[in-house]
């Protein structure tokens, strides 16, 4: 058998698969960001906190109400989405006529508040959350041991991503959303309820973040900073894909997961930087990102 730079092909295969799983989180999170940025023109710095909320809500559902993982997968995005709706109505709705900067600042502040409140309530070292019984164990694929749960993560995220993409790019609702983003006043003057659309969109984007949070709870540390750690990378993913491009967010999310995975094998020291290097290169060559539309 051949080896690639000293790495046997089976191991490489395993790593590719892991990269894909990692990419699933990037994809859902960047999708949520892209939906919010693309349709609301808000750089949602609260996204990390909302992802974290998803995981914590799953924990609360389990420990306070006895509702398990599957319930959490449905309820946590809805609960987080409702908080998103409240945030949008109370705060963001006042900022649409302003520069991106203000939305960024506001969501940054909200992120701090949410993170701080959770830290006060739950401490910072995190909470336990188990993999649901149905998905414990794994398959021996020959070249690696593949936990069932990871397989489920990939399937769930692919389904969610495709469904979202379809709604926004291919349906009437999607064209309303895009129009509302670009020129809300005029869109409303056509009889479309823009404020409602925007509110629901934000709620949906937040729901996506929380969904990723629930998916993450059994395998990543459930702690108040879990979102802050991942969010900068996800921003980079969105930029590489093209701000606001739904397809871009999805494809780049998975793609970068894989690239990052490979870097972890060949040159682990660079695995934290590789996404930023790619981002710099991509932006120099394709200013609007891989899938971005130039205005």
């Amino acid at each position: 058998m051949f080896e690639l730079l000293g790495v046997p092909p089976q191991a490489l295969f395993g790593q590719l698969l892991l990269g894909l799983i990692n990419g699933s989180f990037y994809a859902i999170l960047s999708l949520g960001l892209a939906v919010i940025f693309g349709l609301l023109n808000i750089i949602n710095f609260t996204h990390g906190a909302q992802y974290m909320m998803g995981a914590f809500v799953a924990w609360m559902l389990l420990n306070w109400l006895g509702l398990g993982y599957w319930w959490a997968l449905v309820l946590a995005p809805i609960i987080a989405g409702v908080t998103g709706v409240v945030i949008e109505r109370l705060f963001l709705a006042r900022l649409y006529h302003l520069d991106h900067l203000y939305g960024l600042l506001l969501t940054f502040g909200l992120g701090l508040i949410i993170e701080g409140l959770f830290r006060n309530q739950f401490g910072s070292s995190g909470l336990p959350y188990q993999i649901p019984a149905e998905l414990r164990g794994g398959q021996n694929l020959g070249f690696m041991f593949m936990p069932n749960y990871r397989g489920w993560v990939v399937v769930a995220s692919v389904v969610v991503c495709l469904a979202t993409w379809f709604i926004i790019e291919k349906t009437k609702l999607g064209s309303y959303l895009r129009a509302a983003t670009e020129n809300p006043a005029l869109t409303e003057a056509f009889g479309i309820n823009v404020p409602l659309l925007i509110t629901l969109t934000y709620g949906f984007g937040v729901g996506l973040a929380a969904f990723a949070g629930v998916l993450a709870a059994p395998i990543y540390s459930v702690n108040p900073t879990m979102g802050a750690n991942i969010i900068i990378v996800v921003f980079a993913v969105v930029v590489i894909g093209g701000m606001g491009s739904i397809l871009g967010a999805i494809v780049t999310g998975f793609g970068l997961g894989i690239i990052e995975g490979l870097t972890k094998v060949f040159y682990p020291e660079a695995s934290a930087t590789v996404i930023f290097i790619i981002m710099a290169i991509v932006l120099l060559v394709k200013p609007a990102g891989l899938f971005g539309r130039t205005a």
Partner: protein
Amino acid sequence: MADTAAYGTAPAGLALPETKGASALHRAIFIALAVALAVLPFIPVIGYPFFLMKVLCFALFACAFNLMLGYGGLLSFGHAAYFGLASYVSAYTAKHWGLTPELSILLGTASGAALGFVFGSLAIRRQGIYFAMITLALAQMVFFFSLQTPRFTGGEDGIQAVPRNNLFGLIPVGSDLAMYYLVATVFIVGVLLIYRVIHSPFGQVLKAIRDNEPRAISLGYRVNQYKLTVFVLSASLAGLAGATKAIAVQLASLTDVAWQMSGEVVLMTLVGGMGTVFGPIVGAAVIISMQNFLSGLGAWVTVVQGLIFVVCVLLFREGIVGVISKALRRPL
């Protein structure tokens, strides 16, 4: 080409009356600022020189950032890179080469400028949110570089116990008070320079580019060179602030290059009022004091900080100085 005869012959006093009044006001504010800086250390509670030095360094940093955002219309999300690199360079040269403060600071500033030139050349070709993101990406690389070259940066420990060598090899600045006056001088010079840049012919063109770039191009301005110039100026001044800070607080650390620092300087500028001359100074003072005086609140600090930002965005959008400037109907 007959019209060009108008040059020089037109009465020089034709400056727009409003600008004239404003510049008198600005002069008064600068004088008041200088006087305040001179006596502040002798005022109890807030007059703690160490705290003041920190405020001044960050105020200069915020002013440098504002030069680019408020006047150049370029939102950089990676300004910590210049601030941080310069603080490492000045700390390193002071500690390991034994350079005098003015030389360390100069070298730090130069490194900020050089990095600004490299990053600027890459970034100015892009606009808006992409510009912000590419600067963020480049700055992240500086961060990881700093984390992974402990030999130069001291890794997560930073460069600690940076010596305050004698200024020009002669004047001792070891005491906090002496150092404070050095920092205050650097600060005033830096802010005056920024003020001059804003109110120069160059600054005028910059405002025009910010307003309508294609139009500026069609008038024959090579906008990229202007953007690069302001980028490098801003990076150098950010470097100046970082280099001075390293000597003043005797520490250069990863905090200075982290993305949160880039975020903080945006916040300072916004809280104070972007596009105002004095806003970033006020903003920096507010944010730094807040961090200082709230540190006893423990885990609630982040919540309080977050609340302040939310309130600012919702209620004081123009920033503190912006609001005042609006009330006075004078640019500040």
